[in-house]
């Protein structure tokens, strides 16, 4: 199970020639574990799912006949007697991006084989995810119960606003929730010492890839829903 092959960097130059050498080599095209290769390929595919969702949203927002709701009004929080736009979403985005930071630290300490630190950092990341989903639930319930926005219509403007908002943020929230379960599983396994026995912490990086991807997607959703 140990990484007994010669370090890749010693074999091929780190430039275009190296790329060609990798691709024309036998056995494997990328000098990474299968799970990492698979996660990258999956993320490319998942990118196309979110890409299709967001393209559809943009297309309908441009072609729908009624005006789009004023998002800084709809998403505003009523704090201290005045409406503050983007407040809740700023906190949510901050938490999610911070969790990407703890995830990156977890990957680093994983490669340093620091078992407890890695496990705790992954759990912190998952906690950030839970916080994000929790605040999303709060936001959804505010939109549904206080402002009366439904997937099939609302009183602020085009009917499609609610549909696209709940569908896309819901699909993203599902990704975050799955990520929380995934990260918790990995964290438990780290703390149990499974990856010490295997002498291999690469799975932490694989989980990290997924988590960073979910964060990156959120940046696009944030920009297209809240800033546009």
């Amino acid at each position, binding site marked *: *199970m140990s*990484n*007994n*092959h010669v370090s890749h960097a010693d074999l091929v130059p780190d430039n275009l020639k190296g790329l060609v050498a990798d*691709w*024309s*080599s*036998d*056995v*494997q*095209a*990328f*000098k*990474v*574990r*299968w*799970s990492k*290769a*698979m996660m990258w*390929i*999956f993320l*490319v*595919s*998942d990118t*196309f*799912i979110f*890409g*299709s*969702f967001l393209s*559809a949203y943009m*297309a*309908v927002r441009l*072609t*729908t*006949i*009624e005006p789009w709701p004023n998002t800084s009004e709809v998403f505003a929080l009523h704090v201290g007697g005045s409406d503050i736009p983007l407040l809740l979403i700023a906190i949510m985005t901050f938490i999610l991006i911070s969790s990407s930071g703890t995830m990156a630290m977890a990957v680093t300490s994983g490669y340093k084989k620091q078992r407890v630190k890695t496990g705790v950092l992954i759990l912190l990341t998952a906690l950030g995810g839970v916080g994000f989903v929790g605040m999303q639930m709060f936001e959804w319930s505010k939109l549904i119960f206080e402002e009366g926005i439904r*997937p*099939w219509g609302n009183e602020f403007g*085009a*009917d*499609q606003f*609610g*549909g*696209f908002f709940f*569908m896309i943020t819901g699909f993203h929230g599902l990704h975050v929730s799955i990520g929380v379960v995934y990260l918790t599983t990995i964290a438990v396994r780290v703390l149990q010492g499974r990856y010490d026995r*295997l002498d291999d912490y690469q*799975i932490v990086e*694989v989980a990290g890839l997924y988590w960073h991807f979910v964060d990156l997607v959120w940046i696009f959703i944030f920009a297209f829903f809240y800033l546009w």
Partner: protein
Amino acid sequence: MEQSSAYEGQPLHEPKGWWGRYVFSQDHKVIGLQYTCIALAIGLTGMFLSLLMRMQLGFPGLFESIDAGSYYQDVTMHGMIMVIYLLTALFLGGFGNYLIPLMLGSRDMAFPFVNMLSFWFYLLSVLILVASFFVESGPTGAGWTLYPPQSILEGTPGADGAGIILMLASLAVFIIAFTMGGLNYITTVLQSRTRGMTLMRMPLIIWCIFLATFLGLLAFPALLVGAIMLIFDRVLETSFFMPEIFKGGEVLDYGGGSPVLFQHLFWFFGHPEVYIIALPAFGIISELISCHARKNIFGYNMMVWALIAIAGIAFIVWAHHMYVAGMNPYLGFFFATTTLIIAIPTAIKVYNWVITLWNANIRMTVPMLYCLAFLITFLIGGLTGLFLGNVAVDVPLSDTYFVVGHFHMVMAVSPVLALYGGLYHWYPSVTGRMLDDRLGKIHFWITFIGTYLVYFPMHYIGFLGVPRRYYSNDQYDFIPQSVNDLNQFITICALIVGAAQFILLYNFVVSIYKGKKAGSNPWGACTLEWQALESPPGHGNWDVQLPVVHRWPYDYGLPGATADFVPQNVADEDIT
């Protein structure tokens, strides 16, 4: 994820008992066979539905049970079953699973458990699809493209019941199954080849399956998104695809959506889907032509680059299905151009196959017959594609039988011919016995000539302007009587072709027990699946050591060698 990147140390999951070996198996060969059997079974259903349609068109009113509604349900389910549940599943799930690890010298797929899940999700999607036949008001009858608003509005068969919902749910489950399988195929091809197996030494069929899988992983998401949104439109009454609709003088609850958006999402999947089916067919033909003509494939490198070009361009031609949908005409110009450009790499491939045959020692085996039939059929289907790719010609021909004739030649008959050739070629590898040659030739000639008699007249009917998807043609003045005569002729031919497929099934079943023993390499092929430890290959495929590859997969007629082929795992100094 406890496998090592040291490929020889890959721990194998040893099957436990009969159930673990044949049912819940993680062995890629068993999974491939499971995919193949289920796909052939549902494909037979699809064929049966097409015969029902033909009965109505050839002999209108003869069968009272086929009313307009059930005719549309047959059309819809026939299309969906054939394109997705038969061809996609059989080429990638069946051939892909069976051949990728064997041809690359791996022990199994990269993630055997995920691979097993992939099959069970596929089976689930088929069951959901079949279930829609048994719900109230039956399966959806919206046409296989499922265009809204029609597909979810009351009056369309299956739209007021659960038919359309089950269809979309089944598609979503299929996409999950495909994604799990596809990640496996790509990871295995990229990361789990044996020593000496460089990318440019892979058999062309592996290149084809690899690229087709890549197309699938990038194209199916658009269909998934379209399906989710359509389900919401139907169940939650959102208006993603639904404009303001008046029905019987009353306004429905919908408004402001974009029906053309669904067409874009659908065809962004739908056109790459054509190549998801066509590329594996190309791959099978490349293998079979080289092996049964005893000659190396012409222009291997160009074949690979042509495939890559086709896979790339396949993503920017989708709107040629939508010339009459009301797009901006400038978009039509763009998509017509890209459509004609994709003919170039395709033509490179056809020329290379033909040049491979030139001066070759052609053996008229059943697989070779299928190759020759494929070349002719694909050429004819491709040529009618040139008509439809041009906007000015497509507009009058759109939605006529000319289109039906075109796409059946190019993406129904052609892939099926390749598929049959592949089944005859690899059957000995799976069972250790040969299929009966005489039955095979009878089946071939009936299928080949029969399909031409079915689809050639459709081109003519299309030129007369007969629209496709019409339940009956006898109420329109512009349709001459000759069309009905032709339709009768087509129906009779289709029934004969349909019946002939049972020759293949009979051959399949009987040959398992009574077929001639095949030996380890009956066709004298160079690729690795014929050089496995046992024949048929056992669990783990290889001896303790994996095979080492020394050459490309098409060393037929090598000067200096006694045999007329040198397998990939024979070193230069071992050639006798």
